[in-house]
C-alpha cells in the first residue's frame, strides 16, 4: 500500500500547489485579505504532502519493495541501507521527486522566514513558488511517476543501483546541488512578484538577497561535491570535463554570481534594478534549462538517464512558458531604463557592472558551447561535439579579465572614489603580486608562465582584501575594534574572494603541472613519477557485500622513504555485472597521488595502470567550500534581521495605532 499512499500524497501536493497558485494571487489583486492569508497554510500543506510522498518512496526503497518499477530497476536487496536510501534519487523518477521536495522545502522556508514581508508581496511570492510547484509535480505525476507498479510480475530481486552511484559522495551531492539549483526559484519568485506589483526598490533587494545568497552557496557546494566525486569515482582523475550536464549546473552558477553582485548594488544604491530582475529571471531559467538538458536525454553525458522524448517535451514547454511569460512581464513592467548616470566612472557600481558583464558573457559562451551540438543537429548539419578546448579558450581569458578588477573592488567607494586615496597601497599590492608570481613557481617545478600568472592574480585578489582592511583601520583604532565593526556580509565576501583566489591557483597549477602516466605494470615493476616511486606488488581477489573484484597493491616511496601503500580496486558488481574502477588516492594539502587500475593484461599478472601526480588539486575544493561558506555567513548579517524588526514595528503601529 506504500506506493498508493505515496502517489496519493503527491496528488494532494498538486492540489495544494494549485490552491497556492490561485488563491493568494487572486486575493492580492482583489484585495481579499483572507485569500492572501491562505498562502502560509497552503505552503505548509504543500511541503508536508511532498515530504510524506518522498518518505513513502524512501520506505519503499528501504523495504526492497520490488513491486515498484523504480525500486526494481535501481536497487537490490544486497545494497547497504544507505545506498538503498541514496538510490531514491539515483534514477530519473526519484530525482524528480527530490526536485519537487526541495522546491516545496524552499517554499515552506519562505513562508516561515519571510512572513514579515508586506502582505501582498508575501502572497504573490508564495503563489509563484506554487506555480512552479504545479509544473514539476504534474511532470512527476504524469510523465515520470515514481510509484508505478511492476504488476503482476514482481521480480524476485532488483537490478541494482548503477555502481558509479554507490558512493558516499552521491548521497549528498544531488540534494545539495538541487538545493542550489531550485533555490534560485525564490529569487525568481521575488523578481516576478516585484514586477507584478511594479515596486522594485532597495527593500525588495534586501528581502531577496539572503535567499539568493543561500541558493548560491548550496549551488557552489553542490558543484564542488560533483567535481570531487568525478575525480575519485570515475577513475580518470579529471575534476571538470565541461560535460553538458556540468555546464547545466555551471550556467545558473555563473548567472547567479552576477545576480549576487548586482543585488548588492540594488540594495545599497537603488540602481541596476531592471538588470537585477533580468538576472534573477535568467538564473532560474538556466536552472530549468539545465533540468531539461539532463532529463530529456538529448545530450550524451555521464549524467543522462535513458531518454524519453515525452518528458523532454513537457519540460521544454514548461520552460518556454516560464521564460516567455516572465520576459513578456519584464518587457511590460520593468522600470524605465535610467539613462542618467548617477555614479562616476571610478566607483564600486562601475566595477560591479564590469563583474556582471564578464559573468554574463561567460554564461553566454558556455550556453552557446552547450547548445551548439543540439542546434547543429536540429539544423541537420551533423553531430558535433564541443570539447574542453573551446570552453577553456573562451572561459579562462574571461576570468583573467575579471581578476584585476577584483583586486580593487572591495575598497572602492560607492558613487565616486578618488584613486589617489589608495594608489600607493595598490602599488605595494602589485609589487607583492609580481614578486610572488616570479618566486613561488620555484617552490614547484620551476618557472612556468601560466603558474606565475595565476599566483600573481591570486595574490592581487588577496592584496585587495588586505588593503581594504588597512583602509578601514585608518587612524589609531585597535585591530579588534576594526574587526568587530565589520558585518557578517563583509566577512562572507572576504572568505568567498579568498576561496576564489585559491581556486585560481589550484586550477592553473593542476592543469600545468599534473603528471599522468598510463603504463603496463607486471608484479615487481616500478615506475617513477615526479620524484615518487610506485612499486607494484601484484593483485589479489577481494569480495565486498555486493561485488567481487581485484585489488592491486602499490607501495609509494619518496626520496627513498616509504610513504604509503595504495590499493586501487577493480570491482564487478554481482547484480548488474557492471565493472567499476575504484581509484586509490593519497590525498595531501600540496599534492595528491592517484592510482587506478585499467584492466588485467596477459598471464603474468600485469595490469594497465594509471598513475597521477596532482599538485594543489585539493585547493580547488577547499576554495569552493570557502566560497560556499562565505555566502552562508552573509545570512547572519544583522541588517536582514533589523529590516524584519523594523517592518514588524511598522505593521504593529498600523494595526494598533
Amino acid at each position, binding site marked *: 500500500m506504500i506506493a498508493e499512499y505515496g502517489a496519493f500524497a503527491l496528488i494532494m501536493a498538486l492540489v495544494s500547489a494549485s490552491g497556492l497558485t490561485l488563491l493568494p494571487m487572486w486575493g492580492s489583486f482583489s484585495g481579499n485579505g483572507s485569500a492572501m492569508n491562505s498562502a502560509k497554510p497552503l505552503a505548509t500543506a504543500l511541503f508536508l504532502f511532498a515530504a510524506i510522498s518522498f518518505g513513502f518512496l524512501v520506505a519503499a526503497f528501504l523495504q526492497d519493495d520490488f513491486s515498484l518499477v523504480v525500486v526494481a530497476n535501481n536497487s537490490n536487496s544486497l545494497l547497504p541501507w544507505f545506498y538503498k536510501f541514496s538510490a531514491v534519487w539515483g534514477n530519473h523518477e526519484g530525482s524528480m521527486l527530490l526536485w519537487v521536495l526541495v522546491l516545496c522545502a524552499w517554499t515552506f522556508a519562505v513562508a516561515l522566514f519571510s512572513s514579515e514581508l508586506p502582505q501582498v508581496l508575501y502572497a504573490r511570492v508564495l503563489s509563484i513558488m506554487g506555480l512552479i510547484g504545479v509544473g514539476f509535480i504534474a511532470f512527476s505525476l504524469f510523465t515520470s511517476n515514481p510509484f508505478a507498479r511492476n504488476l503482476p510480475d514482481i521480480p524476485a530481486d532488483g537490478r541494482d543501483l548503477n555502481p558509479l552511484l554507490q558512493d558516499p559522495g552521491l548521497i549528498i551531492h544531488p540534494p545539495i546541488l538541487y538545493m542550489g539549483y531550485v533555490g534560485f526559484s525564490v529569487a525568481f519568485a521575488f523578481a516576478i512578484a516585484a514586477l507584478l506589483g511594479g515596486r522594485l526598490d532597495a527593500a525588495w533587494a534586501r528581502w531577496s538577497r539572503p535567499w539568493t545568497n543561500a541558493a548560491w552557496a548550496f549551488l557552489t557546494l553542490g558543484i564542488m561535491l560533483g567535481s570531487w566525486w568525478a575525480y575519485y569515482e570515475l577513475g580518470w582523475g579529471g575534476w571538470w570535463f565541461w560535460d553538458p550536464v556540468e555546464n547545466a549546473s555551471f550556467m545558473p552558477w555563473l548567472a547567479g554570481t552576477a545576480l549576487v553582485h548586482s543585488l548588492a548594488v540594488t540594495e545599497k544604491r537603488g540602481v541596476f534594478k531592471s538588470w537585477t530582475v533580468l538576472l534573477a529571471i535568467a538564473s532560474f531559467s538556466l536552472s530549468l534549462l539545465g533540468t531539461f538538458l539532463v532529463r530529456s536525454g538529448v545530450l550524451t553525458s555521464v549524467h543522462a538517464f535513458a531518454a524519453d522524448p515525452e518528458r523532454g517535451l513537457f519540460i521544454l514547454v514548461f520552460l518556454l512558458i516560464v521564460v516567455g511569460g516572465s520576459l513578456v512581464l519584464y518587457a511590460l513592467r520593468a522600470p524605465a531604463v535610467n539613462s542618467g548616470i548617477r555614479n562616476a566612472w571610478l566607483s564600486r557600481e562601475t566595477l560591479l557592472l564590469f563583474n556582471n558583464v564578464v559573468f554574463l558573457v561567460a554564461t553566454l559562451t558556455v550556453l552557446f558551447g552547450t547548445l551548439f551540438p543540439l542546434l547543429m543537429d536540429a539544423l541537420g548539419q551533423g*553531430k558535433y*561535439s*564541443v570539447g574542453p578546448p*573551446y570552453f577553456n579558450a*573562451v572561459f579562462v581569458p574571461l576570468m583573467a579579465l575579471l581578476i584585476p578588477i577584483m583586486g580593487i573592488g572591495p575598497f572602492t567607494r560607492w558613487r565616486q572614489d578618488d584613486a589617489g586615496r589608495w594608489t600607493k597601497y595598490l602599488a605595494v599590492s602589485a609589487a607583492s603580486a609580481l614578486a610572488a608570481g616570479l618566486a613561488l613557481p620555484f617552490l614547484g617545478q620551476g618557472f612556468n608562465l601560466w603558474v606565475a600568472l595565476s599566483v600573481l592574480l591570486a595574490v592581487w585578489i588577496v592584496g585587495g582584501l588586505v588593503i581594504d582592511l588597512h583602509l578601514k583601520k585608518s587612524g589609531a583604532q585597535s585591530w579588534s575594534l576594526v574587526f568587530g565593526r565589520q558585518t557578517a556580509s563583509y566577512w562572507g565576501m572576504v572568505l568567498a574572494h579568498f576561496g576564489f583566489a585559491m581556486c585560481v591557483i589550484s586550477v592553473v597549477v593542476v592543469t600545468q603541472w599534473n603528471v599522468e602516466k598510463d603504463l603496463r605494470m607486471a608484479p615487481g615493476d616500478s615506475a617513477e613519477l615526479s620524484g615518487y616511486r610506485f612499486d607494484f606488488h601484484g593483485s589479489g581477489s577481494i569480495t565486498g557485500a555486493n561485488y567481487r573484484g581485484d585489488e592491486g597493491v602499490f607501495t609509494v616511496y619518496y626520496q627513498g622513504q616509504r610513504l604509503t601503500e595504495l590499493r586501487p580496486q577493480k570491482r564487478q558488481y554481482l547484480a548488474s555485472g557492471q565493472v567499476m574502477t575504484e581509484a586509490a588516492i593519497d590525498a595531501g594539502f600540496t599534492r595528491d597521488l592517484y592510482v587506478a587500475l585499467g*584492466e588485467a593484461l*596477459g598471464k603474468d599478472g600485469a595490469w594497465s595502470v594509471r598513475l597521477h601526480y596532482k599538485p594543489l588539486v585539493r585547493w580547488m575544493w577547499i576554495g569552493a567550500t570557502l566560497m560556499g561558506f562565505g555566502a552562508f555567513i552573509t545570512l547572519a548579517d544583522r541588517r536582514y534581521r533589523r529590516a524584519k524588526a523594523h517592518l514588524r514595528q511598522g505593521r504593529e503601529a498600523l494595526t494598533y495605532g
Partner: protein
Amino acid sequence: MHPKRKKRLIVVLAVVVLSSLGIGLVTYGLRGNINLFYPPADVIAGKAPVGQSIRVGGMVVEGSIQRSDNSLDVRFEVTDYAGTVPVLYSGILPDLFGEGQGVVAAGKLDTLGIFVADEVLAKHDENYMPPEVAEALEAAGKKI
C-alpha cells in the same frame, strides 16, 4: 508601443544581436575545437576528412580486440553493420568497453583508413547507448 518601451526593446534587441555576433565570432575562431561524428559507413565511403579531429562510433566487432604484449596499444574494429573501421588506441580503455558494446572514439583518420583515437568513450551504464551510435545503427538498418 510606448516610446520608452520601444527604446528598451531596441536596447534589448541590440544586446541580443551583438552578443550572438560575438559568440558567432568566438565559434568561428575555434572551429578546430569542435568535432563532427561520422558513422563507420561514411568513413568507408570516404566522406570523412583525413587528418582532422572527428569522432567515429558504433559497435565493437566481436573478436576484433588485439592487444600488444608490452605496451598499452590496442587495436579493434568498430562497425555499424554497413561498414567497419579499424581503430588504434594507446591507453586505458573505459570500464564498459568490450566486444559487442557501443563506443565512441575521438581522434583522426590516417591516410590508410585507420582511425587513430586519442580518446575512447563507452556507455556509462548497462542500459545506456550513446545517441550518435544508436542513430548510426538505425540509419544502417540495424535495430538494437
